[in-house]
């Protein structure tokens, strides 16, 4: 049989999705389903003085109105070891537990009614009087403070570095210094966040939009002081998330409380506008860089400060310093990370959290350094190539970044770039070429899977994972099919249910490196189990053979010496009168984390066309080459990468929350004014995967490819805009007012 891993298999769940058969969280149609709508605070800080709920309670179809005055007091027990997806210090929002308002958009009431329209209408009838307190709603970088110990312990360190930066900077003959600003961004997945809560006695089922069913269960168990075993979370399909569904948000708790109150299943779906307040976002950041180099372009000193906004009731922090710590060789480095407290809902991870921010500043500054040196930007990167992870003092488990640079540059035609800015024109437009490096650290986490071989020749593989879009269903099917020696259409992968074996978070680009190896282990385990059964049997082709005399191959068992036929699994099951045989397997990170540093790499090259008179930028071409280790499915991998390019294009040119400090609120909270790229923005995009197979990192040889795909795109575009126009736009997005200003 041909290899299945590495084949461009079409999405196995594609037909279900395009025909509407895939059931998303909002679509579980339970008997007696009632609908909830939230009332959100309209002040940035203060407290609720009074709530007039009479009109809402009298409105047609209303089943309940709940506020802090009558909501049950919940235990909100601490989780012994806070999951990484949660804020690492402070307290998560305790929803409807007191009269305090911590940010504009905090829920102050929830209404449950027979229909969605009735619930929404009644929520609008709830009259809330507030007492406003002074609020911090302006980002002031000078107010930055180090992250707390909790975050530092979780890797979001306040400072890192090596060598003598001040001394080296003084000596450096070439220096650049710059400040970059990136505004608050929102995930804006197509599917809004939604929860259906269904109590049956003391047992609770949640149909939820989540990237991690197991943690969702744990969080709700702790909020309500319940045993985890009494909760089941079901989430078979997720309509995009980009990190917004990693953690469990307050509306899930509201849905659970509401369902308890009305003794019916309750659906709570956030509106598009509410998504800007009720879940997280990528925090506003400002960063300051100083780069010192010798005349040959070798970095001798690197200073990088990243300052981000954070909420005040809990502290979410990011690993924004990580790329600076190891992307380039530099003996003298100092990086600092600071947080500015503001009265806002809490930020949260959004694709390549922190890293995309750190890469943005570093890669724009590198471009400025190249210009200062009069050196080709690609050549500057090559001169500072990090042969090892200098911060950790470890070799890379693998690194094919040089091949990425070469492949992408060749394909793009980088050699045609004229070094001088404003030197390339076409049809009245200024043309610019820009490039940047991408990196995202590769991690693994423990997880498990089960495999059942059935009498009809199918293999059913199960794990409580998630597929928010990358193609987990498909790629895991391929891994199992190849390991078992079965065709893809004989394998079914099931995910998104806490009844399935434990899976780690579906985020941080770790799913395949983590769970893929568990799937392999489960496949091996079920083969071993079947082999033992066949050897232990009284009769049959393998009865009484030694352990090493029987091997699994080509979808069945055969003799190790190659003699005799391969007996398919299903036939063996029939011979032994078994309906099915099942086994579990798991995988976890091992000693490799002590021996190696692991990361996915990429090189992005873009062309921009700038209409100087009108201040508009379009991107006709974008080419990325990536080292993501082994590629399980080049088709879904390509989709991931061009999706990341589109996300990066939005970051560079379009996305921005328009924050009004008077209200402490995002004002453009809808998709007509918060712009993300549309088809017309997206022209030629190409993703190339350079050959690699990182067995040092994990047996499957994969690294991770979700996050790295968005890193480097925005700085490459900004650098290309400079090359086209001679203007450094250091605040994103690059919109007409910035180019005309």
């Amino acid at each position, binding site marked *: 049989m041909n290899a299945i891993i590495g084949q461009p298999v079409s999405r196995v769940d594609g037909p279900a999705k395009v025909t509407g058969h895939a059931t998303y969280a909002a679509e579980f149609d339970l008997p007696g389903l009632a609908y909830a709508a939230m009332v959100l605070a309209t002040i940035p800080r203060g407290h609720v003085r009074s709530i007039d709920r009479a009109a809402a309670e009298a409105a047609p179809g209303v089943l309940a109105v709940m506020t802090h005055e009558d909501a049950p007091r919940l235990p909100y027990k601490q989780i012994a070891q806070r999951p990484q997806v949660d804020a690492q210090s402070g307290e998560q929002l305790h929803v409807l537990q007191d009269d305090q308002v911590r940010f504009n958009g905090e829920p102050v009431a929830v209404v449950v009614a027979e229909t969605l*329209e009735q619930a929404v*209408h009644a929520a*609008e009838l709830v009259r809330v009087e507030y007492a406003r307190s002074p609020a911090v709603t302006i980002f002031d970088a000078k107010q930055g403070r180090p992250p707390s110990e909790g975050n530092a312990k979780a890797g979001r360190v306040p400072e890192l570095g090596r060598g003598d930066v001040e001394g080296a900077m003084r000596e450096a003959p070439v220096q650049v210094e710059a400040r970059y600003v990136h505004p608050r961004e929102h995930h804006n997945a197509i599917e809004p966040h939604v929860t259906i809560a269904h109590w049956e006695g003391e047992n609770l089922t949640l149909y939820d939009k989540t990237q991690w069913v197991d943690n969702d269960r744990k969080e709700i168990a702790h909020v309500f002081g319940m045993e985890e075993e009494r909760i089941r979370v079901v989430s078979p399909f997720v309509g995009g998330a980009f990190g917004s569904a990693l953690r469990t948000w307050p509306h899930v708790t509201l849905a659970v409380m509401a369902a308890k109150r009305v003794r019916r299943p309750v659906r709570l779906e956030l509106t598009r506008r509410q998504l800007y307040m009720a879940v997280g976002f990528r925090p506003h950041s400002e960063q300051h860089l100083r780069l010192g180099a010798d005349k040959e372009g070798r970095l001798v000193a690197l200073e990088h400060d990243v300052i981000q906004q954070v909420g005040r009731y809990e502290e979410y922090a990011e690993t924004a310093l990580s790329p600076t710590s190891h992307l380039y060789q530099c003996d003298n480095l100092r990086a600092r990370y600071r947080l500015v407290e503001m009265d806002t809902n809490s930020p949260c991870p959004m694709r390549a959290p922190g890293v995309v921010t750190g890469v943005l500043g570093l890669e724009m500054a590198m471009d400025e350094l190249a210009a200062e040196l009069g050196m080709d930007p690609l050549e500057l990167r090559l001169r500072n190539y990090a042969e090892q992870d200098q911060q950790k003092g470890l070799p890379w488990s693998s690194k094919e970044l040089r091949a990425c640079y070469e492949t992408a540059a060749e394909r793009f035609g980088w050699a045609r770039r004229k070094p001088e800015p404003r030197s390339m024109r076409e049809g009245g437009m200024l043309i610019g070429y820009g490039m940047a490096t991408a990196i995202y650290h590769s991690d693994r986490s423990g997880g498990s899977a089960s495999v059942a071989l059935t009498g009809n020749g199918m293999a059913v593989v199960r794990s409580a994972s998630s597929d928010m879009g990358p193609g987990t269903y498909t790629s895991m099917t391929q891994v199992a099919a190849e390991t078992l020696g079965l065709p893809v259409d004989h394998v079914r992968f099931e995910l998104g249910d806490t009844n399935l074996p434990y899976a780690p978070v579906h985020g941080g680009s770790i799913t395949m490196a983590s769970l893929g190896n568990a799937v392999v282990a489960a496949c091996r385990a079920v083969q071993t189990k079947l082999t033992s059964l066949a050897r232990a049997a009284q009769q049959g082709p393998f009865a009484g053979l030694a352990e090493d005399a029987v091997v699994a191959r080509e979808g069945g068992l055969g003799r190790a010496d190659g003699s005799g036929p391969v007996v398919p699994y299903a036939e063996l099951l029939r011979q032994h009168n078994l309906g099915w045989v099942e086994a579990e397997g798991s995988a976890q990170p091992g000693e490799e984390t002590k021996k190696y540093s692991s990361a996915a790499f990429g090189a992005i090259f873009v062309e921009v066309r700038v209409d100087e008179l009108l201040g508009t930028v379009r991107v006709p071409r974008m080419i990325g080459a990536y080292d993501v280790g082994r590629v399980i499915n080049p088709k879904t991998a390509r989709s991931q990468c061009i999706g990341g390019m589109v996300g990066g294009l939005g970051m560079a040119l*379009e996305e921005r929350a328009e924050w009004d400090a008077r209200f402490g*609120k995002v004002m453009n909270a809808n998709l007509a004014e918060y*712009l993300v790229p*549309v088809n017309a923005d997206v022209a030629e995009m190409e993703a190339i995967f350079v050959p690699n197979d990182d067995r040092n990192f994990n047996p499957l040889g994969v690294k991770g490819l979700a996050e790295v795909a968005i890193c480097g795109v925005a700085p490459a575009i900004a650098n290309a805009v400079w090359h086209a126009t001679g203007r450094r736009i250091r605040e994103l997005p690059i919109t*007409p007012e910035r180019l005309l200003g």
Partner: protein
Amino acid sequence: MQPFTYAPVADAAGAAARALAGAQFIAGGTDMLQLLQENVLQPGELADLNGLGLAGIGEEPDGALRLGALTRLQEAADHPLLRERCPVATEALAATASPMVRHMATLGGNLLQRTRCLYFRDVSTPCNKRQPGSGCSALEGENRHNAILGGSEHCIAVQPSDFPVALVALDAEVLLRGAEGAERWVPVESFHRLPGDTPEIETVMRPGDVILAIRIPSHAMRWRSHYVKVRDRASFAWALCSAAVALRLDGEGRVAEMRVAAGGVATKPWRLVRVEQELLGHRMDRDRVRLAAVWASEGAVARPGNAYKAPLLQHTVERALLEIGGLA
């Protein structure tokens, strides 16, 4: 969203009666549904105009084009006569929203599209247009989308439609049917009102009025015309600024007739008379065009968020003129 009843109406008289009883009209619904969902409007009744039979585009005996109020944007954008004779109109329509929206939205509704001002659309904030007397949040707020022309201390909301800007350049008129049945023609140029101290009143329409049609006059059929739209992304975005130009050159290549209008920058489709005056009677060359376009932002009142619109308006007008003059 407040509960409402739905009343399909069969004729303009029926529509007028429903409106006088407090109903809001719905035709394509592309804007109305947003306004309902966001609780910006709370009608007790929606009167559906789709049964009025006002769709279609035809040529009148004198050569004018008559466009039914219920004609869908896409139908108009694709109409061969309109494309051939009034490119500014079809270019503006093709640059409007997305294909899906254009297949639903109607020409009449597009004239009445409400502003995209962030504060008008968020009911938790003060807005004089939505709630007279509550204050204008945009003056000192997030106003990169707001108007530099035609604003008042009470409102700087932009009328966001593209098509009416083209209609002003084409010297078009709107046919209104009054509540009593009398029909009257109103120039598109004077159809929308300046906000003044009553920003909640946006047009000259009176209670019970129904838009029946739009007429592009026969003299506009002799003009060359063109629309340029600048937006934050390549498609499906509001105009940050747009320019519509229509002109006729005489035998010597001099500008004999000209109308220029701007969108995205003003509280109503904004005619740029001074720019026209600078060019009338002259041959168009790059320098004259550039100097004329500078007058586009005459009288602009800029705020930190929208100050860029003054140069952008000049440049957009310049681009439109250069392109129509074959100088680009």
